[in-house]
């Protein structure tokens, strides 16, 4: 029975966590704990892949006594379980080497395996209570990891904000499931599916689901905690949170909206599409404004979540109009992007943490020239950067290409509203893809290329073997998923069959990826990759044969200024300056002020830029302020004299009695 095997894996993970508590102080603990966790995750991956086509269920006599704890692994949860375990295994392998540099292992080691177990359980849960229990445990454990480096106040602040947002999300999910379940107390998904939900409520439920899952996934404007919390955690955990936990949130949304809610009105799909598009665009714009590498990556998670939700929204739209082939395409695209993003985002975070280990820096403006010191990390990071920038022949392009193809199907929709919004959304996606490319040219170029901007980065060393192995494994994954996307879309067919009553055509290598039908648009990553390889080979051969092969190494052309200062190079800020001027001037009210010293004064001229985060300014800051104001106003209640308290009792009594007297 596969499900029981999966549950045993989770039990083992929890056991490892318990073991870690006792031994985490030891030097050898790191390797053993992470190694064991990685093995369990790989087993879990195997189980997940096996159960894509063979669903199985199990009920334990735990949880709410009258329903017990239901677990089920079907096509959908298998896909996400695979993502979770793959990401988990990669993170653990990376951490075998990386974790040795951990400052407080006893604050990290016990939580990581438990965190993995919690994420797995969310995916396996088959009743509302178990789902929410695991969901909240997931938040809690990740919070513990966020505050594991608790000496810096911003980490603590990040943890606080994260937990508040998580609480909001959980309450929203409480309400969601309460509405889905209805007055009865049968919280099993089967029961929920059976009695469905009234169309009047479906809007509310979708909104609550967006609030609940979106706050964890980082939908705009609920993303605010994400760029604070993800970088705060140890880097392999950042990779887990960004690459995997957000996907678990997506799973929650898919499970509720596609599976439990039943049919959804097309108007609601507009909401999802618009929110997704806005999230994608703003996420990447935020990212462009950053110069902290990990925060930049965190904002890119926001962007990719936006892309995924656009895909899901398209699927909803098509499904509501019965265009199941298109719906299947959009759904598959979204899930494929989920998988791809988990690959390259983990890879990029690994790269960032490798850099952090080697240089102790996260600020790109103090890095540079690392490609000479850490060539292999640089190569892996380059693959990840190209993949996330949606460049062929890598996997990011494949999934975004499918999203675009899905968008092109919108012409067949009967609702003109959707037919107007979807092209706009597609354009926004293209824009965010282009911005992402710009952002990663910046990220890679400023960090790895050019000349070292600090001693830390000039004296960097390549990271250890296991870490590199993890990175290259993921890089290879990006390559394979890009060249042979069919392999992976095939795995998604049962899930899409289950939820959209259709699936993308089965792809057999080396046949191309076919969204709708072979007669229609197709993309063959293999051929493209081969084409580029052959062309490059030919060119190289020709050059080798006919060109002058001598290469003279010399200084950079300095326009006649001897010894150019390293700080004359472009920085993260200056690279983004044109984009900031074009886009951010509106969104973030970006302002630049130049202060030139008076003539004959040798003081440097200063260029100052100011950004305003609209979300904080308009949403979060007011909430915080109002809480402090209200509590401040109410606080005097605690300083009254006894007579006033008696007065309060008296007034309450009289009020209640009066109400009784005048109540109709």
């Amino acid at each position, binding site marked *: 029975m596969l499900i029981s095997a999966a549950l045993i894996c989770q039990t083992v993970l929890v056991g490892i966590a318990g073991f870690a508590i006792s031994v985490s102080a030891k030097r050898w603990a790191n390797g053993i704990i992470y190694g064991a966790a990685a093995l369990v995750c790989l087993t879990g991956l195997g189980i997940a892949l096996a159960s894509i086509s063979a669903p199985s269920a199990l009920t334990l006599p735990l949880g709410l006594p009258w329903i017990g704890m239901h677990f089920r692994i079907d096509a959908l949860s298998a896909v996400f379980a695979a993502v979770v375990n793959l990401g988990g295994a990669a993170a653990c392998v990376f951490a075998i080497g990386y974790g040795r540099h951990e400052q407080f292992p006893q604050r990290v080691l016990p939580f990581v395996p438990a965190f993995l177990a919690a994420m797995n359980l969310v995916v396996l849960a088959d009743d509302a209570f178990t789902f929410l229990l695991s969901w909240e445990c997931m938040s809690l454990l990740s919070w513990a990891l966020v505050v594991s480096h608790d000496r810096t106040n911003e980490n603590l602040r990040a943890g606080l904000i994260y937990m508040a947002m998580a609480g909001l999300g959980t309450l929203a999910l409480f309400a969601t499931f309460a509405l889905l379940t209805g007055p009865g107390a049968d919280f099993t998904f089967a029961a929920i599916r059976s009695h469905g939900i009234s169309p009047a409520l479906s809007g509310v439920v979708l909104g609550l689901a967006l609030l609940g899952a979106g706050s964890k996934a980082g939908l705009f404007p609920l993303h605010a905690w994400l760029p604070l919390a993800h970088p705060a955690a140890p880097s392999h955990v950042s990779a887990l949170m960004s690459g995997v936990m957000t996907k678990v949130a997506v799973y929650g949304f898919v499970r509720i909206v596609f599976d439990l809610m039943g049919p959804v009105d097309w108007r609601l799909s507009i909401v999802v599409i618009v929110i997704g598009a806005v999230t994608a665009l703003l996420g990447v714009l935020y990212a462009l404004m950053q110069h902290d590498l990990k925060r930049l990556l965190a904002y890119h998670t926001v962007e990719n979540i936006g892309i995924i939700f656009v895909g899901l929204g398209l699927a909803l739209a098509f499904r509501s109009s019965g265009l199941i082939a298109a719906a299947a395409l959009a759904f598959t695209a979204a899930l494929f992007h989920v998988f791809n993003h988990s690959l390259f985002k983990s890879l990029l975070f690994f790269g960032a943490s490798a850099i952090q280990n080697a240089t102790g820096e996260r600020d790109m403006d103090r890095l540079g020239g690392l490609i000479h010191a850490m060539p292999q990390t640089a190569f892996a990071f380059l693959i990840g950067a190209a993949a996330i920038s949606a460049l062929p022949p890598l996997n990011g392009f494949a999934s975004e290409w499918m999203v675009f193809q899905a968008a092109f199907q919108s012409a067949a929709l009967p609702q003109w509203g959707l037919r107007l919004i979807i092209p706009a959304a597609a354009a926004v996606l293209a824009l965010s893809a282009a911005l992402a490319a710009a952002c990663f040219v910046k990220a890679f170029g400023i960090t790895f290329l050019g000349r070292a901007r600090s001693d830390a980065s000039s004296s960097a060393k390549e990271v250890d073997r296991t870490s590199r192995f993890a990175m290259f494994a993921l890089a290879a994954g990006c390559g394979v998923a890009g060249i042979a996307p069919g392999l992976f879309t095939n795995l998604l067919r049962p899930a899409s069959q289950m939820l959209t009553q259709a699936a993308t055509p089965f792809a057999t290598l080396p046949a191309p990826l076919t969204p709708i039908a072979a007669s229609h648009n197709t993309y063959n990553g293999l051929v493209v990759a081969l084409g580029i390889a052959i062309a490059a080979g030919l060119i190289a051969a020709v050059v080798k044969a006919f060109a002058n092969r001598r290469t003279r190494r010399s200084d950079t052309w300095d326009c006649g200024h001897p010894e150019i200062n390293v700080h004359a190079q472009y920085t993260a800020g200056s690279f983004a300056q044109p984009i900031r001027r074009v886009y951010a001037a509106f969104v973030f009210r970006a302002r630049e002020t130049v202060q030139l010293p008076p003539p004959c004064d040798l003081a440097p001229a200063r260029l100052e830029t100011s950004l305003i985060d609209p979300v904080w300014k308009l949403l979060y800051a007011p909430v915080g302020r109002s809480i402090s104001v209200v509590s401040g106003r109410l606080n005097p209640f605690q300083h009254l*004299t006894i*007579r006033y308290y*008696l007065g309060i*009792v*008296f007034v309450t*009594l*009289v009020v209640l*009695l*009066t109400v009784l007297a005048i109540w109709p």
Partner: protein
Amino acid sequence: MGPFDIAHFLAGLVVLLSFALLYQDRLPPLINTFAAQSLVLALSVAWQAQAQHAPHLLITAGIEFCFKTIVIPLVLTWTIRNLKIHRTVEIVVSVGPTIIAGIALVGLSMGLMLRAGAGIGNLAHQDMAFALSVVLLGLLMMVTRRNAVSQVIGFMSIENGLVLAATGARGMPFVVETCVAFSVLVVLIVIGIFLFRIRERFDSVDVALIDSFRGER
């Protein structure tokens, strides 16, 4: 005039005396008025005892008489003299509005009991109305007076209301015990006033501490 009319009349008298309590602005007459109220109460309890043929109520009447009409007033006057509490009642809300509020409260309780109307005996629920208004007036007094002593008296008038209610309810058990138990409270409060040397008000054990300590600062 029938038995219930007399009970009714005495209960009304008690309410009237609560108004008198609200009206007083110096401590000695306040104490005397309270003594008077307790006396009337004792009478009504005694009357109820013979009306309901419930001899144990006589004990209650006795307690009321000795304790509230004689002992407590004496103790309080003694306190005033010893602790040099000055004689005027510090009034938060001046007498006029207080009286009006009191009348409103009586109206409220009447209205409530009249709405309750059916079910309980016609006069019984008027007695309840009187008792309720005595309780409310006592609370009102505790809230609108500053001196410790006047607040204690307010509290005790609340108790009077309770006793009125308890005796008004036909055949209610534990009336005596309840009175005793309640008198313990009163005693403790009075002792507390001694113990803590509370001169003026019991807002705070020590007036100097009011600012330094309240909840937290």
